[in-house]
């Protein structure tokens, strides 16, 4: 008799492996069909398995019954044929490369599991639910709320588009000096106005966008030598830049 190395498995990995194997069978048949006038295709496959399920409080796993073991459960799996059109109708779009999956956001495991149980795999899914006014707190037994997740999601989004400062220059031609900060992904949150502080004094941010910030400072705010500029672009992007007015050297530090 064949030696059977029995191992615990979960249903998802079993179905995955089964589908891979049936795909292989289909490929083999497709090659044979090139030279044979008559071929057969597998319309559907069913499996009745004798096994023992176990539940460890987290997931259900199965182990196939061994010779001599009685009382095994029977699991029936039926795999039918499916057309490409049916796949498109019943399958969600694959997660895109720039989408933020729930694995990437900083939430505890229980919240992540609750989200997954609800079929939420990315932040986009969550936003769709919010737009449709789904009471997610009720569905998840008050484990999840949009309010709690909103900041985490914003933080994750900010991490995927981190700000960077390329150049800081000082324009002295107007009545008041203007600090011009050039960079990338500087001001992305339309609901938050950037705040700037120079040498512990609040200064006025004239304009701000993705690539540039113009900060008006009082004539007495800047001093010769080292000046400290702190910019809060949004709650998750705070810059501290040391500007040396004499030789325009600057040192840049970034905190999230």
């Amino acid at each position: 008799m064949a030696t059977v190395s029995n191992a615990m498995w979960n249903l998802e990995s079993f179905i995955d492996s089964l589908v891979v194997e049936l795909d292989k069978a289909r490929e083999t048949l497709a090659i044979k069909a090139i030279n044979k006038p008559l071929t057969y295709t597998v319309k559907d496959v069913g499996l009745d398995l004798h096994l023992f399920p176990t539940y460890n409080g987290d997931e259900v796993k199965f182990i196939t019954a061994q010779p001599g073991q009685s009382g095994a459960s029977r699991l029936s799996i039926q795999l039918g044929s499916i057309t490409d059109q049916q796949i498109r109708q019943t399958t969600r779009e694959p997660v895109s490369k720039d989408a933020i999956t729930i694995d990437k956001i900083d939430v505890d495991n229980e919240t992540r599991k609750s989200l997954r149980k609800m079929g939420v795999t990315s932040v986009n899914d969550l936003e769709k639910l919010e737009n449709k006014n789904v009471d997610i707190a009720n569905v998840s037994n008050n484990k999840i709320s949009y309010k709690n997740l909103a900041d985490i999601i914003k933080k994750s989004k900010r991490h995927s588009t981190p700000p960077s400062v390329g150049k800081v220059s000082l324009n002295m031609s107007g009545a008041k000096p203007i600090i011009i900060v050039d960079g990338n992904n500087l001001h992305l949150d339309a609901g938050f106005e950037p705040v700037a502080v120079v040498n512990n004094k609040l200064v006025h941010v004239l304009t701000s966008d993705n690539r540039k910030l113009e900060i008006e400072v009082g004539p007495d705010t800047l001093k010769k030598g080292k000046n400290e500029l702190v910019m809060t672009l949004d709650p998750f992007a705070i810059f501290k830049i040391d500007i040396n007015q004499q030789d325009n050297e600057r040192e840049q530090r970034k905190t999230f």
Partner: protein
Amino acid sequence: MEIDEAMLEMGGFVSQMVDLDGILFDLEEKVLVQLEKADLEIPIQLEILNTNDEGLKIGCSPPLYYVETTVLPVFHQLKVNIEITENKASHGDSL
């Protein structure tokens, strides 16, 4: 870890089951019969290996021994429905 040599991986097993000529020809009676559809239901022995890298490996075979013993192997059941396909360029929509 490999599947037991007495077994085949599920994909190979299913494709061998479906590898039929499908035509029965009687020269004397001059009768030709073509198989249109077949529903197979057979007991199988399974070996499921959990390889961390490649996921699960599923090996299967028909019953390897037919001698009745005190402790018999566990026989699972495999059902496969196959249908004839015309040999056109567009094949392979089904499993």
